[in-house]
């Protein structure tokens, strides 16, 4: 963001649609302070009763993985099927397991 940008800072908005479920990224808003960010997020992303809770966080505060690291980060878990219950063979007839 250029310093002459007078549109405020960019904030990412996370909305919880119903109690008990995770907050999900909804989009972003501009605001100069956190109160404004929260209000703008409310007015922009919950006009149709989409939310029960809102988080806003400065976009600049988010640390994201780089696409070129995705091999290093995520591929090594591909050969570890023993982390999933379907990996295991259960004796026929065993119940509740």
């Amino acid at each position, binding site marked *: 963001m250029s310093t002459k940008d*007078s549109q405020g800072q960019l904030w990412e908005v996370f909305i919880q649609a119903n109690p008990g479920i995770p907050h999900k990224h909804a989009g972003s808003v501009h605001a100069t302070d956190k109160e404004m960010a929260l209000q703008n997020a409310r007015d922009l992303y919950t006009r149709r009763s989409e939310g029960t809770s809102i988080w806003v966080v400065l976009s600049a505060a988010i640390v994201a993985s780089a696409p070129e690291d995705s091999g290093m980060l995520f591929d090594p878990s591909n050969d570890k099927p023993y982390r999933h219950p379907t990996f295991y063979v259960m004796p026929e007839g065993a119940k509740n397991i």
Partner: protein
Amino acid sequence: MESTNNLEKFQTIIDADTKIEPKDWMPEDYRKHLIRQISQHAHSEVIGMQPEGNWITRAPSLRAKLILLAKIQDEAGHGLYLYSACETLGISREELIDQLHTGKAKYSSIFNYPAVTWADIGAIGWLVDGAAIVNQISLQRTSYGPYSRAMIRICKEESFHQRQGYEIMGKLALGTPEQKEMAQDALNRWWWPSLMMFGPHDSDSPHSGKAMTWRIKRESNDVLRQRFIDKTVQQAEVIGLKIPDDKLKWNEAKGVYEHGEINWEEFNQVINGNGPLNKIRLANHISAHENGAWVREAANAYAAKQKKEVLVA
């Protein structure tokens, strides 16, 4: 340098219909094309608030006023979704607004036409939003992730826009003779500009080639325009209004409506700044922006003071 390796990988992602995300490598032309298209789309939503906003204070019932306000508010919201999507490409909203003000960025020419009567609010919802939705539904499958997500959200919210416009037209068409005349007049004025919204014929469309290869655009101008015509003709019949095109004719063999030729001279004139309201729409936007400068400065200054206080404490 754009290595062939990167380019191949990029095209593979596109061809597999997987989305490109902001941090992924992309050709510079892809980025430029997206910035141009998404910002034009965002500006259109925002400038599009003006013709309808012209009638907020004159809406003929409390219900109509509430609906119109909510609709215009959605358009502001959609402008914001799209500005955000555009910002993921490394351009600030300030720059985008600046491009609008200097004329470097365009917005849809349709909004340079005046909303003269209340029936125009019906026609804008029914025809202009109707045409926009045909395009936007297609764009939900666009290859750039943030743009696609914005489109999905926009389509979901816009589904009521066309209906409210059609409802207004229907009420007028079934109302007093004066009301019906008002409705037909609005249809007469908005029909052709709505068809122009889809842009030049495919054979004359300068940006289409790469946009299709990169799957930014998923269907051609003419295909989308035809889809809009085919669904709208029947809707006009239901409320007893006549589409102002003498050449309009059902082609049984092709299963589409044939239509008359669009006045491309008018299209080019409006695009080049000579539409009825080009200068006024832009001047309004610039003046709102300038009138708000002291407010934005104050908010930034206030935020800076708050930060300092936190540091001191």
